[in-house]
């Protein structure tokens, strides 16, 4: 199953969820649970908290399938935004609670933490959504420690092309720093679930 779901799949899934088809909910989970859970985990760094966010995001989607607007992007990016926002919401809650209990920390530190977590989650999303050839090249060079010549050989492309893919992949990834989270959310997506 590819990373890019056709718009038709998205619209059809939305209709099926809206008419209350439990089977559609299962299929929806199978497609997006790993994405939601890993983004939440990246923000919260805790399995139980990520489980909880997963539960909340799917609960929200099941109750509000109509809040997905296909004109604003594909379903995958919508789900990623919901996951990221809910995870950040939880992180703020947890940190505020910790502050109330211990008095350690400051508003500034909290914002820094939220910012770091948000950038990290956005970066994860960018990696999973970027074109497969770029992702493959990054995987080889970073995780398997292949140099760009070996990467080129592994991928069966020229060395020029391997260099291009590595550079382009990192350029895409660096955009995780660029956009503020809330600013990137389409209208109506801005409230917690």
């Amino acid at each position, binding site marked *: 199953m590819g990373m890019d779901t056709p718009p038709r799949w998205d619209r059809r899934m939305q209709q099926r969820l809206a008419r209350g*088809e439990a089977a559609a909910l299962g299929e929806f989970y199978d497609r997006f649970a790993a994405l939601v*859970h890993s983004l939440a985990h990246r923000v919260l760094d805790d399995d139980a908290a990520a489980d909880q966010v997963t539960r909340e995001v799917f609960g929200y989607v099941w109750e509000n399938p109509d809040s997905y607007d296909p004109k604003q992007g594909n379903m995958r990016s919508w789900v990623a935004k919901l996951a990221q926002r809910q995870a950040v919401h939880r992180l703020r809650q947890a940190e505020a609670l910790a502050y109330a209990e211990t008095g350690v920390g400051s508003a500034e530190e909290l914002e820094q933490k939220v910012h770091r977590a948000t950038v990290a989650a956005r970066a994860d999303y960018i990696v999973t959504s970027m074109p497969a050839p770029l992702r493959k090249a990054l995987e080889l060079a970073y995780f398997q420690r292949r140099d*760009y010549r070996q990467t080129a050989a592994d991928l069966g492309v020229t060395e020029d092309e391997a260099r291009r893919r590595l550079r382009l992949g990192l350029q895409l990834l660096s955009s995780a720093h660029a956009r503020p989270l809330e600013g990137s959310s389409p209208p109506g997506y801005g409230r917690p679930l």
Partner: protein
Amino acid sequence: MTGAADDADDVARAPRIPGPRRAADDHADLTTRPPEASGTETEETEETEEPEVPEVPDLSHNVLKSLLGAWALSACSAGETRAVENHLTACAPCADEALRLRDAVTLLHEDRDLDLDPLLRSRVLENCLGRRPARIPVPDWVTPYDAETARLDALLRDIGESEWHAPVRLKWYEEDRVVRRKATVAGVIGHLFAVDGLVTTALGLDDPLGPDVPELSPTERTEAFWTALDRPPNRSVRGPWRDQSHTLIRTIAFAGRGVADLTVTYKDFALPLQDSLLERAFECWRHADDIATAVAYPYAPPSGPHLHGMIDLAARLLPGALANRRRAGLAGPAKELVAAGAPGRSLHLEVEGAGGGHWYISLDSPAAIGSPERAVAQVAMDGVEFCQLVAGHITPEEAAAGQDGDREAIKDVLSATASLSRL
């Protein structure tokens, strides 16, 4: 994205130089450490730096720029690394980009999809359905199949391309001996796909093996699927298999009540749809376990309630299997005639662990009722071990069962349990 047309500008803006540096025009002194582009230098470059002085190639600005990604990932030669770093002291746009790309590298990290708890699915779905009841629910008796196919699919998502060709050793019990067959991960998915097709056709949907396929046994269907392929199966079987399982669940959900009793024929026997789906869930788990073993992944048994349903199905099939074996001369003669619906001699099957329970297997006739009062023997087994016997993964002799009572009855029941297995 930086375009290619800005090269002239790059050079013109060169005076804005980042970081501390030695004399930029001192090209001869290659023994000194090159100035660093930024404070974000990671340890990786330190390690890959070779002690001897690399030859620094003379590269054009375009090539140097194209190397920035590889440089940030520490994926160039030592000479190229030096060349890039020398260049960064002289070219501000490249230095800016180098910094950004180095920062981007720190955002890469290992995928951790594997940690998703398979039991989370049912908890999440339950929570959803509690918040908003389904207008078109999935019947309870379909959930083992739904859960097992989802679990296998999650495993398949995590395995690499080459692992689809990993050898899988299939093993079952036929005519009182162990039969083995070699397949691959993709081949096993093809097997599940072909046999699930029996349910598909029973529901009136198109046979995945194509139109006009005669009535075939599960094994024959699998052989037909395998031989029809013009090359060894690969990961592309996952999509059709998964689509079919989703379609089955959806079709049943829409079909409503009566569909549970629809008959699914397996050529030599038949099951009501409800049991057939349980049987398919069992097969899915057993083969997922075969696959997980082949690719060295951990794989847990089904949840307790689902395992219980699978054991219960096997227990209900046992009196019939015993009668078949008796007719074939493989089991001892019936000890008594029992009127249909009356309690007859029974074996007490006690299954321990999650999904366990007590079953009373009628020994002399499938029409008789198993009864605690008429129990002449008792067998105690662990739930997963019992399922391994049902799947033919262990022999009746290997089944380390706690046994008590009529030896012949125990031997016949354990052999009949193993005889339920097939490819």
